């Protein structure tokens, strides 16, 4: 099972290594981890995607909660959320293929952010499924380089 935890933590030095250390020490598998500032400068938000069975996931939540620097842990897997990742993909492109690639980027509402003589860089934003689809579509042209962020997520509606 793959679960997404939204974790609010104190913006203290060392908090990232404490959380990362917790995962390695307890043998939990991190798929992705994003840390960033929030509207409150004294707190940071971590979005952690974890793979594991029900028992592991229960432990992940509880062990995170035990950390002094952790303010709040939310397992948002089964909640209505907006989740996004960002990818930069450098694709091989010559005069013959450039047009086709541009069409694909348009279909996926990606942007081309740089063009070189033999390649171009595509910026793709979306959830995991969309990013995967973009990568699949661009692969035949030759992906030369790729940089991806982890996933950030937020609950929909209410509040």
């Amino acid at each position, binding site marked *: 099972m793959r679960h997404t935890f939204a974790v609010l933590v104190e913006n203290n030095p*060392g908090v990232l*290594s404490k959380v990362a250390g917790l995962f390695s020490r307890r043998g939990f598998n991190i798929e992705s981890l994003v840390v960033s500032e929030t509207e409150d400068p004294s707190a940071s938000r971590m979005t952690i995607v974890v793979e594991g069975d029900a028992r592991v996931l229960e432990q992940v939540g509880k062990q995170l909660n035990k950390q*002094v620097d952790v303010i709040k842990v939310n397992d948002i897997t089964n909640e209505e959320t907006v989740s996004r990742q960002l990818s930069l993909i450098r694709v091989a492109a010559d005069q013959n293929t450039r047009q086709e690639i541009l069409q694909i980027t348009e279909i996926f509402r990606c942007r081309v952010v740089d063009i070189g003589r033999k390649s171009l860089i595509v910026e793709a934003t979306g959830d995991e499924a969309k990013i995967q689809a973009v990568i699949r579509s661009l692969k035949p042209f030759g992906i030369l380089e790729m940089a991806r962020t982890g996933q950030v997520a937020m609950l929909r509606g209410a509040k």
Partner: protein
Amino acid sequence: MKNGAQYIIDFLLKKNVEVVFGYPGGQILNFYEFLGRSALRHILARHEQGAAHAACGYARATGRPGVCVATSGPGATNLVTGIADACLDSIPLLAITGQVHLRDIGKDSFQEADITGIVTPVTKHSYLLENLEQLPSVLDEAWQVATTGRPGPVLIDVPKNFFLEEQEMRLTHQPLLTRKTKKPDQTEEMLPLIIAKIRKARQPLILAGGGLIAADACRQLAELVALTGIPVVNTLMGKGAYPEEQPQALGLVGMHGLAPANLALNDCDLLLCLGTRFSDRVTGNRRNFANQACIIHVDIDGAELRKNVDVQYTLQMDAAAFLDRLLREKDWRKNRGITTWQKRIRQWRQDYDLPRRFTGPLKPQEVIQEAARQAGSEVIVVADVGQHQMFTAQYYPVSRGRCFLTSGGLGAMGFGLPAAMGAAFGRPGETVLLFVGDGGFQMTSQELAVIREFNLPVKVLIINNGKLGMIRQWQDVIFERHFVASDLPDCPDFVKLAAAYDLPARRVTVREELADAVAFALAVEGPALVDFRVDPEELVLPFILPGGTPAEMLGRWRGETHLRGFSGK
């Protein structure tokens, strides 16, 4: 205006800290400068590991946090074993370390070590002080973290410049813990269910863990057992939570647990687990653990619930509060259904008692038995780690909490002597009996100097078999007597070593000298040492091999040794 050193010292005094255990060094000298002018008592250990274990022994014996102090780099790293020990046994400990000047951090300066990085996995929390304004909040919060919920160790790393910097200091923000969101309390809906289960059970059993002692819940447990007649088994850390001379006390469970205790665990239909965390040394094979039973697990640390063992009912709650709530229930006496169970247990106790009479060379068990006979339950018993520790858990009945101190979770050899010294500072006037092997004793024997210096009533009883006994036992049973690195040559002469530290000492080699030597150690005012030369062939039995079940228990009963597994019931 106060400087950082003064603020820390005043804070500790305000928290009624009586004594800190430490060792000075370059980066913490400024702190010592002010410590020396304050009312706070400092005990100079002879090694930082000794300071950490002593603070731990103090905390275990008193229930109040132990405090240890060390310098940066090697001073700090030498504390680590003691801190890890406190972490696994949930002991409140505050470690304060000096660090290099803030501007020198990260430059691989002389005696620099990233101690907060090093201790992260073995502390409840750790702090590297980055500005002086934080100090009041950090201290306040560190104290709170160490002492509340499930207690544990906290380390504060203080760059040397902050000891001398002066500032008006006040709490700058609320301690962080208050920001944490709390989970809704489910106690009230769970309790009736749990109580009904306990009432209905025909073969109920209580598994008493160290959490009962941490929660000061021993009195309530005794009351509940008196009302219900439910038998009690204990973990190593839970030893003393329920008086062991009581008829319902079955003693230690687990790998070297007593046969009746393990058999009861195997056959019970309800297991009420209080303040325990299902260590592999308790459960053996986790899948077969108490598999006939409905298991109820009560612990203050929610992360322990369902961590190691699948249980039916869990309650995140302080053990004392839980027992108070049970005791408010009326009509406990009406459960007469368990008399058959009690009778069965009585039969087990007759059939599978520990050996009590010994022949041939002097045995480690009889040393402990004799010490228990003479010293009784009015002393603090400390056990180091190894065979003698298990023999002490089996043969020394303890009737109060905080009177049996041992490194349970970490199993740190060398814990014994400094922990005994810490306990003696925490409970002046009480005799401390230390059982220690010849291996563990040599790991921290330098602390004899402190015991001499303060004339502490620590009786060092060395169970000396000239071997690393537990290692040898595993090599004997599991590695088919292929003994590697488990021999200790007959050196040093512990009686002469005691003389070097100016301690009265004796050696015992035969049974006839045993009673006299124990009496001698107890009669001496202050410290004494006895070197008991015991049989190296002796195995700790019963023995459930790692991952085994009570049915596979090796043991010796009615004069016969069973090393192929427990066959009859």
